[in-house]
């Protein structure tokens, strides 16, 4: 079984990154935006794993980074959802356009 070339994996992760970015810019729903952020993080995870596997197969640095990112992403999701709940209580909506009072 021949190995998948590195460039394919990088194309997937780049596609994932820009899909996430697109979602972050276009979606108004905060939960979808959170999902988009997760996509961006996962694209980074894929990069770490891929570079670890293809460039330094005898080391585990990339894997550990990925593990940390997953843990932080989980914590971030918890904090973000807590913020969404509070926003919903104040604005009765989870639309980001509704929460634009913190400005000049």
């Amino acid at each position: 079984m021949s190995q998948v070339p590195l460039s394919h994996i990088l194309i997937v992760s780049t596609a994932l990154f820009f899909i996430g970015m697109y979602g972050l810019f276009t979606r108004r729903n905060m939960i979808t935006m959170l999902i988009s952020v997760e996509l961006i993080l996962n694209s980074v995870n894929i990069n770490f794993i891929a570079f670890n596997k293809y460039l330094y197969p005898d080391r585990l640095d990339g894997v550990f980074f990925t593990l940390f990112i997953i843990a932080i992403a989980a914590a971030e999701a918890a904090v973000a959802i807590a913020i969404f709940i509070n926003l919903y209580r104040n604005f009765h909506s989870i639309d980001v356009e509704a929460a634009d009072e913190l400005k000049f």
Partner: protein
Amino acid sequence: MPNYAYIALIPLLPLAGFVVLGLFGRRYLQRFSGVIGTAVVFVSTGLALWAAYQYFFGTGSTSLALRSHPFIMLKANWLPFSPHLSIDLSAIIDPISVMMIAVVSLVSLMVHIFSLGYMKGEERFATYYAFLGLFAFSMLGLVLSGNLFETYIFWELVGCSSFLLIGYYYDRPTAVAAAKKAFIVTRFADLGFLIGILILSFQAETLDIRTLVQRLTEPGLQLTSITGASFLGISAVSWGLSLVFIGGAGKSAMFPLHIWLPDAMEGPTPVSALIHAATMVVAGVYLVARLFVLYGADPGVLHIVLYVGAISALLAAVIACTQTDIKRVLAYSTMSQIGYMMFALGSLGYTASMFHLFTHAFFKALLFLCAGVIIHQVHSNEMQRMGGLRKTMPLTHACFLVACLAISGIPPFSGFFSKEEILLAAYRANKLVYFIGLFTSGLTAFYMFRLYFSIFWNKPPEGHPHKILLVESIPLVILALGATFAGFIPFSRLMNPDGAPEVGSVFSSMAIAPVALALLGIGIAAYLYRKESDRPAKLASAARGFYTFAYHKFYIDEVYLFVTKKIIFNLIGRPAAWIDRNIVDGLMNLIATVTARISAGIKGFQSGKVQDYVLYFFAGIAGLAVLFIYIYT
């Protein structure tokens, strides 16, 4: 040498009185404030008189030769800047300072007692006594200070308390204006004093008066022609002395800085007696006397002192003849008498000047206190509203007459002796000034008796006798005794600039001319004002031009107004205001406007929309990425 350490208490007790009355007087001590203030000054006066007795007459009193060297007491190092420059606080003991503390505290005590009756029922009674205490402290400190910088501090303090007391009736616009005028004019002159102090102390490298005088009069030092330090062809020391004299002239109301003194009469009358007649206004004379050895060694500056004094004496006497406000007449007479003291110093008559200062304090304070009693009786300052008061106010009449005789120089009252010595000194020094002084003494007698006859004769007596309060009559009697007998004190044996006993020749033929002139002046005044008549009016219209000129005080006030309002305000004030408003303020406004504009332009970035921030964030990342790629490839 006897111990004079207690002398520090003399100024400090009134200061304590000021602090207590100033802090608690109005709320807690309203009724007792007068008694407290008076008691404190009474103790001070007792100490001062004891010090004077001990110094001049007491056992172990120093001989005249020793006395001419002042000694320094209670030296305290206050501001040490460097080993060569430090400002010390000290008390100087020499004949004039001891004489002055006795005079100042005594007159101060008389005024404190008199005010118990005169100011009774005033709303700010406690404040009044607090201010009097402050004044007594500053004036006593001024005469005792043995350091030029210390002198300057107290000099400003007396100016400040004078300002507070002139403006005591702060609801009267005239009083407020007078207080401001007095403060500004004297402050202006004090600038000269300060610069003078700096020049002198720079030359002598010390601020201590005794050391300064010693260093600047060392035989090897050519005082008036120091080649190294001169400006405009005049030596630095001469400049310093002239500038110090400007300060003294401002405080002592010498021409042309006299304009504040007549207006200062807006203050309560006892204040005029204390500050603007007997004590503060002679501070300038005292200052020149304090540095007399320096002035005596500099003939040029001495000439300035001589002529300024003579012009002031004559000018003020002429103006006094035309004024109708009783206090203003007395104010001009004060100015004239201080002019006498100044030109006495200018003609090297140190003892004569101090003697006149001493006797003048008594009779001028007495005149003002009498004027206070009269003003309370008549409820007016104008001479026309008075007349025929000799029956209704016998005690005031007697005291006023004594004071008038004393100031006119009629023997054996005190003014006679001191004025003789001054004229003698002037005769020796400068004939022109001697004749000015002689003429002025005739004028003095004329205007004082014009006042006397207008107040006490002129109209037929009417009304019941005015009851004078005991606290008002005691000071009058004491001062009248002083005005009568102070002349018999052998002054020339008590103080002297160089320690050599001066040859007194009081009862010589020199005395004939001034006394005859004074009697002539009294005679003319009696002829014009003893009975109500149209003679004064006729005389005034005969010399109409000159009379109006003198009545308007030679338009000196108007000249000042012209110079300040028209010239200084227009040529300096307005351009300065324009620069301040348009350039200084404009620069600040420009900075503020630019900042406001920029922030208004960029504040849209903070939109409150999360996705905008995400956009900036990624744009920033992209920008940095491009930058790094550009740099590293």
